[in-house]
C-alpha cells in the first residue's frame, strides 16, 4: 500500500512536470502561424495568506501579495520593477471538509510598467469582487483541491487617461498536496504541491477568452499553525495585443497562517489506559 502510494505520488509529479515543460518551454520555441510568443520574463511574488476561524463554519480569509517583476532591459532579474500589491479578503463558509465557498473583495495596486515614462501613472487601483467554490478530495494520503474562482474586475491601463473596463474572470485550479515525509497531510509534513490553473475572461473589450495558464510546482511544510510554501510557476497567457502571448517564470514565496478564534479546541476523546 505504501509503495503504491509512493508510486502514485511519483506519477503525479512526473505528469505535472510534463505539463510544465509542454506549456513552458515547448511553446516558447514553436511559433504557430498567426501567434507571436514574447520572450519570457521573470517575477517574484511574495504572499501572506491568513485564515482565521471565526466559528465552526465561518472563516475570514485574507491574502496580501507583494509582487515584483523583471526590468525592461533585463527580463531575468525577477525584481527589477514593482509589479502589484495585491489585497484579497473574504468570508468563507465551510460546508464540510470537502466543500467551502468564499466571497469577498479584492483591491489590487497595479504599478507602472515604465517608471521613467511620464505617460504612465505610477499605480492604478483595480477593485474586484470575487467568489470561490472549492472542492477537496483525498486519494491515498494525497489531498486534491478543485478550486473554481470567479472574479469581477474593474481594471484600467496605467496610461494616463485610460478608462476602467469591467471584465469577468473564470479560473479553475487543480492542486495536489503530496506528503513526502508522512503518510498523509498533517503537522510537520513536507510536501510537494503541483498545480495547474487556467484563466478565462469575458468582457466587452475582450477579444480572446483564454487569459492565462499557470503551472506551479511548490514545496511546502506544515508547522503547527503555519504553512510555508514556495516554488516555481510558469504562466502562459494572452496579452492586450491579439496574437501576441506572453510567458513568465515566477518565483513564489508564501507563508500561510491560521488561527482559531473559537477558543474551544475540541479535546481528543480516546480511551486512555487507566493510571
Amino acid at each position: 500500500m505504501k509503495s503504491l502510494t509512493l508510486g502514485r505520488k511519483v506519477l503525479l509529479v512526473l505528469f505535472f512536470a510534463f505539463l510544465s515543460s509542454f506549456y513552458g518551454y515547448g511553446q516558447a520555441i514553436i511559433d504557430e502561424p498567426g501567434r507571436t510568443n514574447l520572450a519570457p520574463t521573470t517575477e517574484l511574488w511574495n504572499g501572506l495568506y491568513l485564515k482565521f476561524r471565526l466559528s465552526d463554519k465561518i472563516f475570514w480569509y485574507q491574502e496580501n501579495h507583494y509582487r515584483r517583476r523583471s526590468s525592461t532591459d533585463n527580463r531575468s532579474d525577477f525584481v527589477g520593477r514593482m509589479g502589484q500589491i495585491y489585497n484579497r479578503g473574504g468570508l468563507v463558509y465551510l460546508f464540510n471538509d470537502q466543500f467551502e465557498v468564499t466571497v469577498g473583495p479584492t483591491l489590487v495596486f497595479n504599478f507602472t510598467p515604465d517608471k521613467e515614462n511620464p505617460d504612465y501613472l505610477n499605480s492604478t487601483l483595480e477593485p474586484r469582487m470575487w467568489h470561490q467554490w472549492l472542492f477537496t478530495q483525498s486519494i491515498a494520503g494525497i489531498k486534491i483541491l478543485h478550486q473554481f474562482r470567479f472574479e469581477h474586475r474593474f481594471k484600467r491601463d496605467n496610461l494616463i487617461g485610460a478608462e476602467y473596463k469591467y471584465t469577468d474572470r473564470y479560473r479553475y485550479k487543480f492542486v495536489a498536496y503530496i506528503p513526502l515525509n508522512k503518510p498523509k497531510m498533517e503537522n510537520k509534513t513536507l510536501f510537494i504541491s503541483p498545480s495547474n490553473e487556467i484563466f478565462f475572461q469575458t468582457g466587452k473589450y475582450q477579444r480572446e477568452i483564454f487569459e492565462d495558464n499557470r503551472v506551479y510546482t511548490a514545496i511546502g511544510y506544515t508547522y503547527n499553525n503555519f504553512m510555508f510554501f514556495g516554488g516555481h510557476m510558469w504562466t502562459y497567457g494572452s496579452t492586450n495585443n491579439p496574437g501576441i502571448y506572453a510567458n513568465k517564470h515566477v518565483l513564489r514565496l508564501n507563508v500561510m497562517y491560521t488561527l482559531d478564534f473559537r477558543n474551544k479546541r475540541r479535546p481528543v476523546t480516546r480511551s486512555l489506559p487507566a493510571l
Partner: protein
Amino acid sequence: MKTPLLEVMKTYLLLLFALFFKFTAFGQSESVYDGPYEFKGKSGQAIFEFKEGKDGGIILNGFFRFDRTYIDSLDQTLLTKFQVSGSYLNNVKEGSWSFDREWHKIALEDVIDFKVISELESEDLEIKANYKAGLPHGRWQLYEHKFSNNEKSLRATAEKIDFVGGVMIGEVSYRKFLSGYTQFLRGKINDLGFMDGEWSLVYLKDSILISEARKYEDGFLLGVVRRNMVSGHRIDEAIYYSTIEKLNQINEGTNEYFNVSEKVFDYNYNDGYRMETIERQIQLAGNEFLSKFLKDLLQFDDSINKDGELQRYPFYTKRFEFDISGDDLHLLAEIPVLFDHLQDSVNRYSEMNSLKLNRSKSDSLAFSHAFFSDRVEKLDKMENFVNLLRTGEVIHYDLTNYTRDGVDFMSREDEVSYVYQDDTLSVLLPRMVSFGDSGTFLQKLKAYLDEELSFVTNIANYVNSRLFEIEVNSRLVALEARIVERKVEVDSLYSNHLANYDAEKSFIEEFAINFLVGRFDDRSEIYASSVDFVSKFDQGNVMLDLLDELEKRLPTIAILFERQVALDELYMEETFNPFTYSRYDQRVKERLYDAGANLFQYYLDNFKTEDDYTQIRDHISTIEKLQDKMYELRDQDTRSIERRLGRRGSPSKLASTLGL
C-alpha cells in the same frame, strides 16, 4: 457406682457437718465422726473421734475404726473386707492397732432342700501393731491364713517383732508357707537398729529353695553363704574380707583414711563393690525376700508410700566413710561436669540424623557413627560411678573394692566395630590413659575422660566438616540447578516478550543484555570466586534474587511504554488545517510534553545502564511518577511551567520545573 472423688467430697462434707454439730449442739472438745471415709486408698465407713485444729482442720484424736466390705461389681462371688481399729493422739497413731484384711471367693455349687451348697476360698491377713507418737513401737504380729477345702491353715506369720521408735530391735522372725515349702527369715537387730549376728533366710528363687546364711557385725555384712535347701549343695559364697580387714584396723586403731560412717543404710550392704561382683549379686535374692517381708508387715504403715515402696527402713546396715585427698576433692565436681559435657556431645552425635543417613558415604563416616554409638554404651557404664561423685556417695565406696577386678569402662584400648559396604570392619583405638596407670582412681578417671573428650571432639570435628561438605555440596548443587533453571526461564521470558512498541522492544533488549548478560555474568564471577560456603550461598541467592526481580519487573516495564504512548495521545488534539483541508492530531502543550518526553528518555537511558538490580524498582518508580505528573498536568493551567521550560535545562532542572 460412686467415683472416689465423690466419696472423698462426701466424707469431707460430713466431717464439716460434724464440726458444726459439735459447736452448736454440745460444745464438747472431742467429736465423733461416723460416716464414709477413705483409709489407705480404700473407701469404707469410719467412726472416730476428732477435734478441730487451730487452722480449722480435722485432728484425729481418740478412737478410730474403719470398715469396708466390698463385693466386686463384676464378679459377685468376690468379697473383700478390711477392718482397722486403733487410736490417734493429735493426728498420729498411738497405742494398739489392728488391721484385718479378708478376701473371700464363694463358688456356688448347688441348692438342696433350700440349702445352699457352696465352697469358700478365703485369705485373711491380720496385723496387730503398736504405735507411739506415730511410729511403730512395741510388739507387732502378723498372721496370714488361708481357708480352702473347709480347712483353715496358716500361711505366714511374724509373731515377735519389736519396735522402738520405729526401729526394729531384737530377734526378727518371719515364716511364710507356700506350696509345701516353708520360707522364713530369722535374724537379730541390735538396740540401735543395725543388723547383727547370724541371719538365716530360706526363700524360693527360680523354683529353687535357697538357704542363705548371713553374718553381720553391728550393721556390717561379713559373709554370705547360699545353699540349695533340697540338695544341700553350696550355691555361692561371699566373704567380705575388705570389710573385715577395715573393721580390724578400726578395732586396732590403725585406720588412716576411713572410719565408720555415721549415716545409716538400708539392707543392701555395699563396701564399694560394683553391681556385677559376687558381693553385690549374692545379696539380691535374699534382700528381695526381706523386702517382701517388710512390705507385708508395714503395708498399712506410713513407711510404705502410695506406690507400695519402702521409704523408711525399720533396720539398717553400716558403711565406711573414706577420706578424699585434697588433690581429688576438686575432681568430685570436675568429673561430673566433664562427663555431662561428654555425654551431651556423644548423645548428640549418636542421635544425629544426618550422620546416620550419610554414614554409608565413606568408611570414616561409618566408623564415626559406630564410634558415637559405642561411646553411648561406654558412658552408660560410667554413669553410675559418676553419679556417686555427683551425689557425694563415693565417700562410702572403697575404691579398692570398686576397682578390684579392673574397670571395664577404662580399657587399655577401645575396639569399635562397624559395617561399611557390607563388610564388618573394626578399628582399635589405643588409649594413652587407662585404669592401669599410676595415680588415684579419680585422677585416672579424669585423665581418661579428658582423653575421651579429645577423641570425641576430634571425631565430632571430622563429622562436622564432612557433613558440612556433604550438605554444602548438596545445597550448592541444588542452588546451582535452581539458578540455571531460573536463568533459562527468565531468558525465555525476555526473548519471548512481545513488545507493542519499537521503543519498548529496543529498551527491553538493551535492558536484558545489561542485566541478564552483563550483571548476571558479574554475579556469576563473584559466585565462582567465593570460597566459603556462606558467601557462596549468599551470592547464589543474590543471583536468584536478580532473576526473580527481572521476572517480576518485566510486566511493569512494559506498562511504562504503554503509559508513555497513552501520554503521547493525551497530549494530542485533533485539528483542521484550512489550507490543506486535512484533519490530523496536533501536539498540545508541546513544550511541556517535550520536556516530559525528554525526561522519560533520560530516565530510560539511566535505567538501562543501571548496574545495581536492586535499583530497578526505584527507576520504575521514578518514571511512573513522571508519567503520573504528566497526566496530572494535562488538564491544568501550565503556562507558567511552559514558560520556565522555554529555557533549556538539565534533566534535574526539568524534573524540578515539572514539580518532581
